[in-house]
C-alpha cells in the first residue's frame, strides 16, 4: 500500500517533470538536472542526520567517489549510463561502509570532525594520482542522447530526463526504507541508543547501514553530477559542497524527503539568482560569488535557532492548523529537535538541575 502510494506520487512528479522539461530552455533543463542531483544527495544526508542521528560533513567527498567512478567506467570501459549509475552508487556504498564502520564508534563532534577531515583530504587524492584521476584538470565525461530521439534533440533535456528518473527511483526506495522496519529502528537508535540496544537492536550495525545507504545516495548524486556537468575535477568537490548539502538538508527539514526537495531547490536556484541580482547591481564578481556562501551560514544558524524543523516542518505545522483532522501519517515532527542525540551531554552547563529521569517525568 505504502509502496503503491509512493509509486503513484513518483509517477505524478515524473509527469510534471516531463511536461516542464519540454517547455523550458536548455539552461532551465540543466538546472532541473541539478535539482535532481541535489535532491538525491540531500535526501541521503537528511536521512542520515534526521533518522539515524549521525552527522556527516563529508558527503561532498562521497559525491566525488561516485563522480570519479562514473568517469573511469565511462572513459575506460564505455559502460552505458543506466549501468554506470547503480555501479557508482555501489562503489560509493562500499566507501560509505568503510567510513561508517569508523563512524559507528564515534558520536557528535568527533564524527563531525572526522567527516570534515574526509571532505578536506579526499579531493587531494586526485592531485596525487594525476595519471589515473586527471589531476587538477579532472576527467571529462560525454553523454549523447540516443539516436532514436533525433539528431536535433537537446542533450540537456535528455540529461534532465535521465537524472529526474534516477532521482525518482532513489526517492521511492528511500521513502519505503524510511517507513520500513529499518527506518523505525533508525529512529529508535537516534532517540535513545541505550533503550534501543536493550530492546535488542544492533545499534552499531544500524548506524553503519545508515551510512551505507546515505553514501550510496551521495554516490548516485555524484554520478549524475558528472554526466550533467560533463567534467569531474577536484574543484567541484570542495568543503563548500558538503556544507551546501548540509544547509539544504537543515533548511528543508531533517529526516523528510519533501524537505530534501525544498532544500535542493534552494541550493540550486538561490545562489544563481543572488549572483545575478548582485552583479546586475554593479557588485564585483568576487563579492557576488561570496554572498551565497554567507547566506548558507545565515540559513544554518537561523534555522537551527529559530525553526529547527526546517521548511517542511513549518509547512506541516501550517497544514495542521488549517486541516486539524488531516491524518499525519508521517507523524508530527518529533517533540525534541530532530537532531537528537543525548549521550554524554549531561555535564553541560545551562542544564536544569540534575534530577533523575523519573523525577523529571513526574514533574512534567
Amino acid at each position, binding site marked *: 500500500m505504502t509502496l503503491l502510494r509512493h509509486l503513484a506520487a513518483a509517477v505524478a512528479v515524473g509527469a510534471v517533470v516531463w511536461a516542464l522539461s519540454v517547455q523550458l530552455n536548455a539552461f532551465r533543463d540543466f538546472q532541473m538536472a541539478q535539482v535532481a542531483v541535489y535532491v538525491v544527495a540531500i535526501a541521503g544526508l537528511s536521512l542520515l542526520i534526521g533518522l539515524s542521528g549521525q552527522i556527516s560533513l563529508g558527503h561532498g567527498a562521497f559525491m566525488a567517489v561516485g563522480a570519479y567512478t562514473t568517469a573511469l567506467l565511462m572513459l575506460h570501459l564505455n559502460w552505458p549510463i543506466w549501468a554506470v549509475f547503480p555501479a557508482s552508487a555501489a562503489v560509493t556504498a562500499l566507501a560509505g561502509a568503510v567510513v561508517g564502520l569508523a563512524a559507528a564508534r564515534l558520536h557528535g563532534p568527533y564524527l563531525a570532525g*572526522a567527516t570534515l*577531515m574526509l571532505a*578536506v*583530504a579526499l579531493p587531494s587524492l586526485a592531485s596525487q594520482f594525476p595519471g589515473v584521476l586527471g589531476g587538477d584538470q579532472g576527467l571529462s565525461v560525454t553523454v549523447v542522447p540516443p539516436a532514436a530521439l533525433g539528431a536535433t534533440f537537446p542533450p540537456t533535456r535528455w540529461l534532465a530526463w535521465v537524472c529526474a528518473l534516477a532521482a525518482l527511483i532513489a526517492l521511492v526506495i528511500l521513502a519505503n526504507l524510511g517507513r520500513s522496519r529499518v527506518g523505525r529502528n533508525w529512529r529508535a537508535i537516534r532517540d535513545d541508543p541505550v533503550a534501543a540496544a536493550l530492546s535488542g537492536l544492533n545499534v552499531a550495525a544500524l548506524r553503519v547501514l545508515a551510512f551505507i545507504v546515505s553514501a550510496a545516495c551521495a554516490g548516485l548524486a555524484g554520478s549524475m553530477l558528472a554526466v550533467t556537468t560533463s567534467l569531474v575535477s577536484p574543484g567541484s568537490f570542495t568543503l563548500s559542497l558538503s556544507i551546501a548539502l548540509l544547509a539544504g538538508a537543515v533548511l528543508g527539514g531533517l529526516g523528510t524527503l519533501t524537505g530534501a526537495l525544498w532544500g535542493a531547490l534552494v541550493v540550486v536556484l538561490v545562489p544563481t539568482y543572488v549572483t545575478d541580482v548582485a552583479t546586475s547591481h554593479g557588485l564585483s564578481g568576487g563579492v557576488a560569488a561570496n554572498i551565497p556562501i*554567507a547566506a548558507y551560514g545565515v540559513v544554518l544558524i537561523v534555522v537551527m*535557532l529559530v525553526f529547527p524543523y526546517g521548511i517542511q516542518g513549518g509547512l506541516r505545522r501550517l497544514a495542521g492548523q488549517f486541516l486539524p483532522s488531516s491524518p499525519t501519517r508521517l507523524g508530527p515532527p518529533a517533540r525534541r529537535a530532530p537532531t537528537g542525540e*543525548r*549521550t554524554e*551531554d549531561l555535564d553541560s552547563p*545551562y542544564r536544569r538541575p540534575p534530577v533523575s529521569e523519573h523525577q523529571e517525568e513526574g514533574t512534567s
Partner: protein
Amino acid sequence: MNEFLQFTLGGVSFGMVYAAIALSLVLIWRGTRILNYAQGAMAVLTTYIALTVINHTGSYWEGFVVALAAGLVLGAVIERVVIRPVESRPPLNAVVVTIGLLVLIEGIAGIIYGGQYRSFPTAFSVTGLRAGSVSLGISRNDVFVAGAVLAVALALAAMFRFTSAGLRLRAAAFNAYAARLLGVRVGRVLTLGWALAGLIGALAGLLVSPDTFLYPSSMDSIFVLGFTAAVIGGLDSPVGAIVGGLLLGVALNYVGGYLGSNLVPLFGLVALVAVLMIRPSGLFSVSHGRQV
C-alpha cells in the same frame, strides 16, 4: 641526518600552530561541551583585520595586538549571540550552528576582502638559522612562532592556577551546577572562555598566515589539523592539546618532506581515524566510564 633535523625543527614550529588551535578548541570544549568549528574562520577574520591595520600603520606589532583584541571580542560576541541559545539543545544543533558560523564568517571575509591570496608579513626574519656550519631549517621567525604559543599557553596555565577568574573557569567546567550554587556567574565565565579561545585562535592565524597565505578559506586545513591535534591529546586536556599539536606537526613534516606534500591532508585523516579507533578519548584524557 641533517635533513631529519630540519624536518623535526620545522615540524615543531608548525606543530605549535596546531597546538594553539587545539588549545582554543579544548578551552571551549571544557566549558560548554561544544566543538567550535568556526575557530579557523574566526582566525581568518582577525588576521584580515591585522593585515588592514598593518597596511595602514606600517607596524606589525600594532596589527598583532589589534588582531588579538579582535579575537577576544569576536569570541565573546559569538558566545553571547548565537551559542548561548543552543547550549541546552542536543549536541548536533550546536555542530550545525558552528558550521554555519564557519561559512558565514568565510563568506563575509570573501565579500569584504575578496578571494585573492594575500601575503602576510612575518614578525622576524625568515632567513635560516645555522648552528656552526649546520643549517637548522628554521628561521628566527619560526622560533618566535613556537615561543609565542608557548608563552600564551604558560600565561593561560598561570591564570587558571593563580587567579580567581581562573578558579571560576575551572569550577564552571568541572560542575556548572555546583559552581552556580556557590555564586559563580557561569554565563559570564563561559563568555570569558570563548573570548580567551578567540584570542588564542587569532594568535594561530597571525602565526601561520605567512606560510599559508591569507584567503577566506586559508585556515580550513589548519583548523582540521588543529582539531586532530586536540583529539590526539584528548579534548579535555590543555597539556594534551600542546603535545598532540607537536606530535602531529612533526609527523606531518616527515610525511611532507619524505613522501610529498599532497599526502599531508590524507595522512592527517589517517592519524585522526587511527587515534579515534584505538583510543577514542585521546592519549591524555583521564578515562571516565561512559554509558553504553
